[in-house]
């Protein structure tokens, strides 16, 4: 089996949940469709999940259920409907959603912007997190921002990762579906890989 993946059978056993629960959560969109990865095995078709993400999600659902939250409440928490939210740049600073450096990157791309809608906030938040790790330069952060703004829409509602790949001092950004495996030529280096859904959720928790 692939590393980082867990079979459905093992998941049910480890987490102590039933098929009924798993499918109900899927119907309620508590677990994204892309996390169900079908693979052929010698016993036939089996479904695998990204292990860490899936176990964390199941634990979160179960703990929220213990607190008597309804499935709809949990769905709201794990994939909040934030489409209508917008913040001014002052509010962004106030709520410490992004550092000054990240806001600067955003400003250089959009000199006239005063309010940011949710999609822009996500892009800004991701840029801030990347800058915070020290993995990317300001110049690269600008390219990250551009990539997110151009391409994030194509992944609407599905789970995507942002990639930064550097070769001979040149950086390329890309969005890939989060379960995709990436192989690079040996002279290229994966500088950063960041799950966007996590950023959406983390940002949602701050708003």
């Amino acid at each position, binding site marked *: 089996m692939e590393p980082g993946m867990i079979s459905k059978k093992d998941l*049910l056993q480890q*987490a102590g949940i*039933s*098929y009924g629960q798993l*499918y*109900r959560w899927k*119907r309620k969109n508590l677990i994204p469709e892309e996390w169900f990865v079908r693979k052929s095995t010698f*016993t036939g*078709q089996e479904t695998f999940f990204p292990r860490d993400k899936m176990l964390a999600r199941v634990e979160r659902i179960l703990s929220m259920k213990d607190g008597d939250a309804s499935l709809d409440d949990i769905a709201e928490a794990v994939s909040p409907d934030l489409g209508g939210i917008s913040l001014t740049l002052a509010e962004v600073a106030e709520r410490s959603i992004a550092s000054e450096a990240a806001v600067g990157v955003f400003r250089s791309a959009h000199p006239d912007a005063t309010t940011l809608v949710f999609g822009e906030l996500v892009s800004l938040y991701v840029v801030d997190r990347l800058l915070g790790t020290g993995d990317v330069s300001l110049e690269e952060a600008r390219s990250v921002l551009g990539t997110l703004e151009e391409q994030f829409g194509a992944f609407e509602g599905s789970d995507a990762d942002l990639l930064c790949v550097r070769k001979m001092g040149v950086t390329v950004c890309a969005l890939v579906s989060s379960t995709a495996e990436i192989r690079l030529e040996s002279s290229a280096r994966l500088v950063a890989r960041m799950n966007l859904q996590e950023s959406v959720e983390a940002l949602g928790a701050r708003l």
Partner: protein
Amino acid sequence: MTENSTNNLKIAGEGSVGGGTYGDVTINGAGRVTGDVTCNEFRINGAGSTDGNVAAMLIDINGSGTFSGKVETKQMAVKGDASVKQGLGVGDLKVKGRLSAGGVAANTADVRGEIRVGANLDAETFTGEGTFKVDGMVNVGSLEFALHGLSSAREIGGDTVIVTLGRGFVGASFLGLFTEKRLTVDVIEADEVTLENTTAKIVRGNNVRIGTGCEIGLVEYGGTIDRAADARVGEARQVTQA
């Protein structure tokens, strides 16, 4: 509600009209609505079609309805034949006759006749008799279906799945369902599984009853298994399960 909500639209005889926001839309005869429609009740007596998206509290079709876009409604009743080319999101769905849809997400779905779904069918409860053909997955809280023809799905998953051989269905001759009564599916996974006349590669469940006429490649059960004498099961193994 805006003023528009009292703005009812009625097509009597034959006609075509533009979309928009209406109170009730009624088509008596043959009518066509072009563009997106938002309304309270959408009724077709005869033949109706829309080429945009429809959002309504209630959709009632007596005769035939063709929806080229997405359909969102609290309640939908089909007596006759309806086709939704894209996704159908519905609270309570009742079909007597035939429905085809690109995908279905329902709270409850009851089908007497035939349902055909191009992608997934999600429902808290899915009941009925006749046939279902789902190209993707059937994801249900509970499924209770009596077979009267050839049914199929790629996968079925849920709490309770009960598939039985339909017996003495009055409408069978009307629908011309003289073919074999059988469900063919790759994988069924549910806590409680009861099957008749089902062909499946894999059945996984807690308590599993493999009834008459079944042909199952592999059964994995956590609790109990019950097998009819004439059921063919390639391999049955008990697995530890929550």
